């Protein structure tokens, strides 16, 4: 799960994932004409590239597939102009069969008539193969447009597309339109909305978050996919984009600081594991990666806590690491092996982050007065985590071992066993 995976188009690579894991994760496909901004979106959202650097990206010239391993099973397909859906060698069934959402990117600063034609054929072809696909249209690069022009463009694109589809007898196909730009958070918010449609457990997650917020005096809670900074669920209070932005910036800060000190403390103290990633930003995610489908992508040296020989080239078995992660809940905040962070702001707001599982982190916004009872919040968040684990069944292997305990906790929570605030 490291950022350095990028560019690894080796087909074997994608198959490393456990099949069950793959099924449980939403799949996305990113399409669009050349130069519409697909690669830039991909780099900015999934590889933490700074938007200004995307100017130097070379254009992608062949069909290009890039797998990203985060909570979302994400594939990017670059479609060159000459691609023909009616070519018999072009296996539409294989391509569209398993996709949950198809994101089509249109460059709003360019003449988009060709893009609309392409969108039309794509929707028709994909819908025939897989009627369950949700179609999402990103009207992209809107940072260059004035407010009025943005709305006009969206209306125009929306109108044209829907008219053409109804002419083709597909008036029931739902398309959603988003105005996006990589220079602000709009691209992340658009992705968040797309992803949320694909998560069957969404109502359950929202409900859990609502219970958590109500019982802990939390004002707003987001469940984030850490790698992409997309939120996959939030409680039912309205989202204001400022809170989302500050939470997403918080993830950045924590990953950045962890990439400096998380790694270094290890080398100096010979505790923890050595990592020789080229990319410094993947420590946290690598860290979280201990639940069974751990991949040694870089051929690097990994040493678990307790491994004494620092120079040993062995990769210690996964179970020992998973064990060290999961022994945590019984301990207090200190000595916790999961990422945890608190940021206090001058206006009395507290940001509280806790790692939920290998992909996800919970971020809560609350008032400083509420945060005085941190123990209560820690406990309730712990209950929430337990419930989450149940929902996603990500910890299959060790779930059997802890089933009794976990069931009990979930049960407690369902019956309002969370201690109320105050």
């Amino acid at each position, binding site marked *: 799960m490291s950022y350095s995976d990028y560019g690894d188009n080796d087909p074997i690579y994608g198959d490393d994932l456990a099949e069950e894991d793959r099924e449980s994760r939403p799949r996305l496909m990113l399409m669009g004409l050349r130069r519409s901004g697909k690669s830039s979106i991909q780099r900015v959202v999934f590889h933490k590239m*700074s938007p*200004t650097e995307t100017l130097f990206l070379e254009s992608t010239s062949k069909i290009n597939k890039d797998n990203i391993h985060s909570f979302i099973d994400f594939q990017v397909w670059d479609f060159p102009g000459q691609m023909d859906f009616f070519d018999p060698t072009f296996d539409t069934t294989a391509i569209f069969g398993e996709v949950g959402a198809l994101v089509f990117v249109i460059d709003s600063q360019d003449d988009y008539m060709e893009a609309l034609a392409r969108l039309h054929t794509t929707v028709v072809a994909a819908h025939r193969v897989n009627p369950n696909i949700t179609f999402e249209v990103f009207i992209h690069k809107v940072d260059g447009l004035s407010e009025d022009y943005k709305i006009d463009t969206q209306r125009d694109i929306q109108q044209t597309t829907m008219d053409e589809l109804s002419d083709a007898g597909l008036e029931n196909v739902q398309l959603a339109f988003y105005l996006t730009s990589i220079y602000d958070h709009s691209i992340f918010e658009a992705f968040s909305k797309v992803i949320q449609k694909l998560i069957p457990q969404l109502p359950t997650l929202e409900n859990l978050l609502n219970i958590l917020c109500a019982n802990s005096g939390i004002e707003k809670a987001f469940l984030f996919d850490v790698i992409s900074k997309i939120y996959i669920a939030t409680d039912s209070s309205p989202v204001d984009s*400022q*809170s989302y*932005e*500050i939470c997403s*910036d*918080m993830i*950045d*800060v*924590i990953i*950045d*600081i*962890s990439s*400096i*000190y*998380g790694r*270094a*403390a*290890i*080398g*100096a*103290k010979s*505790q*923890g594991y050595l990592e020789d990633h080229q990319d410094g930003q993947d420590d*946290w995610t690598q*860290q979280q990666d201990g639940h069974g489908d751990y991949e040694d992508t870089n051929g690097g040296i990994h040493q678990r806590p307790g491994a004494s020989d620092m120079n040993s080239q062995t990769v210690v078995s996964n179970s020992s690491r998973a064990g*060290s*992660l999961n022994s945590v809940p019984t301990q*207090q*905040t*200190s*000595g*916790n*092996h*999961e*990422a*945890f*962070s*608190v*940021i*206090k*702001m*001058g*206006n009395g*707001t507290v940001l509280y982050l806790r790692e939920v599982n290998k992909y996800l982190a919970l971020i809560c916004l609350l008032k400083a007065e509420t945060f005085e009872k941190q123990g209560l919040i820690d406990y309730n968040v712990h209950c929430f985590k337990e419930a989450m684990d149940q929902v996603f069944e990500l910890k299959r292997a060790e779930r059997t071992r802890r089933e009794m305990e976990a069931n009990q906790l979930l049960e407690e929570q369902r019956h309002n066993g969370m201690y109320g605030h105050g």
Partner: protein
Amino acid sequence: MKKKVLLMGKSGSGKTSMRSIIFSNYIARDTRRLGATIDVEHSHVRFLGNLVLNLWDCGGQEAFMENYFASQRDHIFKNVEVLIYVFDVESRDVEKDMHYYQSCLEAILTNSKDAKIFCLIHKMDLVQEDQRDKIYNERVLELQTRSLPLQVIPFRTSIWDETLYKAWSSIVYSLIPNVQLLESHLDNFCKICEADEIVLFERMTFLVIAHSTRVDNGDVHRFEKISNIIKQFKLSCSRTQGSFQSMEVRHSNFAGFIDYLTGNTYVMVIMSDPTIQSAATLMNISIARKHFEKLEGAQFSK
């Protein structure tokens, strides 16, 4: 205590941009909006309470330059503590840059011969990555030979990464009186907390003032990286009508605390012993506050 700092260099080399980022909370992208500096722009930056940087941002167009060396010579080059000379690495006319630079050194030598001289090779982001070391080393060598008999301290900088913070941290470090005393107290603090590392930042700019390290981290660029990371976050906090106050990060193998220490400083404490509770460290920081307030008061009130 006022310290005069001259910021010079050819027109368009990036003097005002870097000043705005470090002292006026600009983000790198916004510096595009800055216009040319006309004549000299004075700004007073309060740093650590009583230490005031008197920053002279000298517009670099030729007409102004000639003026500085002629009629304004005494006015500009008297009582200078630090001269910062900015070179655009992409500059076409290196000879001319050097000519002005040497005139500048001459004026410094006669008017304030004890001034420290920092040379920033700026806009390094425009050079291809694999060429950067080579070009930088060449420039530095040339600068050093041309600067004799004066000694210069060179830095490579870019407003797009943390190198800018490294250069400016070193510059302000050279201006802080009695910084060794501060460092020894910080060492002591570090020992008492059993911390791996303690870093002291200036509150507004987040430039590193001093640090104490018990367990070396190996990443030599970490201080400027942290400056950059926190400064960026501070800016995004202020966009959402809140100001950054403190943070705690816990991880499997370290815990980091960033909190204010005195009215003018922030402190970052890095712990790696998982048995030490957060509350203990936070308590240590809050006790240290009084101590450092007193120290700062004694040090800068003179």
